[in-house]
């Protein structure tokens, strides 16, 4: 993208026609080729010192998440304790990047994390479906921000996107960004509902143009969630957006990433597709819950040479 004449990006979102022209003018994604590239990157063999580095880096990139109807303040407090100090027996384990909760539990998390480096992220905008009026969605966001959330994970209106109402999706992101104030905005594309990689690329650009600080794969409530080809396309989008504008935006993968091996493979992809600059929690996150425990088990295995059982890491 770097040598393309830089389009006036303000003009792009003037109406559905020009936004459509821009998004559909992006190079297509050949699905077979993208899957092949993702599979090729997964054959990298990450061992010994590089594995240790990758495990610690992955831990520091986690948004430790609980998004259940049954969440309680007690559950959130124990999650926060784990986020700040993932392994109570080993202070060299880094804290995770943030905890991620529903808006009504933000205040609890903020209190529990006071004095730590861990951020508080909250899903908002009628998560996970996004099927509510814009007023309701924005109210949801303001609630979370007022309670102290430093990061907001919004969902886009997939129905509007699939219907081609790109300006509506764009305007909602802009409005949500305004409602966030100083909080960082992560835009959930729910790529499992967008179905094609072409759509994943277009939605990524739409969210970047509208001012999202991060683009995020999924809510975790829809399958498929984060997949290697989707991650590839989204990393290409932030790479190309940087080449075009000079600005670095982030990528968050969420949903279904449970094993250390998968996390390490994604870091390889970040490294080789977006570039080293993205190997930073400010620009790359994993939205996950059980992944943390597997990373801790692998970390211990690497240090001691033997596996601990699952009872040697805490459940929350």
């Amino acid at each position, binding site marked *: *993208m*770097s*040598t*393309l004449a830089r389009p006036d990006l303000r003009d792009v979102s003037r109406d559905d026609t020009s936004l459509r022209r821009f998004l559909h003018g992006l*190079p*297509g*994604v*050949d699905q*077979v*080729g*993208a899957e*092949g*590239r993702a599979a*090729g990157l997964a*054959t*990298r*063999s*990450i*061992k*010994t*010192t*590089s*594995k240790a*580095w*990758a495990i*610690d*880096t992955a831990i*520091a990139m986690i948004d430790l998440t609980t998004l259940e109807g049954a969440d309680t303040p007690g559950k959130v407090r124990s999650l926060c304790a784990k986020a700040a100090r993932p392994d109570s027996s080993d202070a060299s384990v*880094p804290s995770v*990047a943030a905890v991620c909760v529903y808006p009504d539990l933000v205040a609890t998390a903020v209190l529990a994390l006071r004095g730590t*480096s861990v951020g508080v992220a909250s899903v908002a905008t009628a998560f996970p479906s996004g099927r509510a009026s814009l007023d309701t969605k924005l109210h949801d966001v303001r609630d979370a921000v007022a309670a102290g959330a430093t990061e907001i994970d919004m969902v886009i209106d997939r129905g509007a996107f699939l219907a081609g109402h790109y300006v509506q999706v764009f305007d909602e992101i802009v409005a949500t960004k305004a409602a966030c104030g100083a909080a960082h905005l992560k835009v959930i594309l729910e790529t499992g509902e967008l179905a094609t990689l072409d759509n994943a690329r277009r939605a990524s650009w739409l969210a970047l143009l509208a001012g999202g600080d991060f683009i995020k794969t999924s809510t975790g409530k829809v399958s498929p969630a984060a997949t290697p080809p989707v991650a590839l396309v989204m990393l*290409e989008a932030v790479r190309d957006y940087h080449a075009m504008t000079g600005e670095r935006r982030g990528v968050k993968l969420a949903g279904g990433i449970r094993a250390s091996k998968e996390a390490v493979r994604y*870091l*390889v992809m970040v*490294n*080789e597709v977006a570039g*080293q600059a993205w*190997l*930073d*929690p*400010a620009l790359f996150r994993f939205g996950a819950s059980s992944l943390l425990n597997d990373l801790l088990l692998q970390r211990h295995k690497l240090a001691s040479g033997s596996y601990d059982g699952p009872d040697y890491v805490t459940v929350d």
Partner: protein
Amino acid sequence: MSARAKSPVFEYAPAPESREIARLKPSYQIFIDGRFRDGSGDAVKTINPADEQPLAEVAEAGPADVADAVAAARRAYEGPWSAMPGKERGKYLFRIARAIQERGRELAVLESLDNGKPIRESRDVDVPVAAAHFFYYAGWADKLGYGGFGPDPRPVGVAGQIIPWNFPLLMAAWKIAPALACGNTVVLKPAETTPLTALVLAEIIAEAELPAGVVNVLAGGPAIGAAIVEHDDVDKIAFTGSTEVGKIIQRTLAGTSKRLSLELGGKAANIVFDDAPLDQAVEGIVNGIFFNQGQVCCAGSRLLVQESVADELIDSLQRRLATLRVGDPLDKNTDVGAINSAAQLARIRELTESGVAEGATRWSPPCELPERGFWFAPTVFTGVSPAHRIAREEIFGPVLSVLTFRTPAEALEKANNTPYGLSAGVWTEKGSRILSMAAQLRAGVVWANTFNRFDPSAPFGGYKESGFGREGGRHGLEAYLAH
């Protein structure tokens, strides 16, 4: 994160495959009439191109061994093999295919040691595709009557097969599997710099208890190849290698009753239109010219890119090439390994120097090359004119020549403007353009939105000076059937 003291750089620690897996022996013997024996030619050391250290000694064949091998192949042909029911022959082929899989790691490491190609390729391409060819043709052995060659097609006889050093095991599989499926017997000569995996394949064939003489493997140089070609009792020659040698063989066989198939050089055009899926096109370009260090007859060595996306594509390509890892072929993270021989390296150097001298712009990503061994950095030439030698001659190395075009007609004209015609690539999201280009490109294989994909069910072969005859698929049977 910023507080963490660790380096922000993701360095991949070495991840070498163990050399022990190759089960290298100090010496290897040729295989004639079901037995291994020392050849009557010279004992030659085969070396590892990655460090120039000797790997093993090979007792090469002499002229007397060629005579013995052809005689053994004839006896096996007249004896059990040609008369054996197809489904019985198929069983032997299935057995070979399974044994290749079982010894897959050993063959992959051995191939990387002897050839210099990265273990990632020998493990993920050479060995599995070799096994797939045996599986595929095993399935044909009892169905030849349904292949469109008449109700009861007959084998040709004794096939002399001469294969190159770029895919030593895979080319052996391409040659042997269809020949045996059709009921022929074989005298195979692997290339002089890469005999080891073909000799291990001979071990597999011996362990599969094929009747003696059905497959004979002779290590040796050009003189042995010539002796096979000239032998009166050989019914068919199949050769893969340079166009130069292919022409010599064709001259030698003119006026004889021997049948011939040739798979020779190429200078393939990889054509990228402005509506192509560009990220995938970049991968296809990389795979097209840097796979196996570009030592591939169907390599996409000429990139034809539409002018309107040329700058963008070259930028993306250069960024991508900066992530290629050049070095130890046995490291699982190596993307580009060693050039096979000093002679080949010299040829690549000579042609790239001509590119610079003729005024093209040379670019390589920053990469450290090992001190010992035969190494050449991935290289891209821009500003190439169709008249430059690097746009016309086969370099057979990791060197890409970039040319531009404005219209589909111009792309087609430039792509076809070569004495070769083995393969081509077309990158566009427009289906009708793919079909139109494929119909007009004078190339045996046209890949659409991909490159260098091989499957035993797909025929492969050339137009013009890239040779004749097809290997793979139903078409691949034709070369080994008298009909």
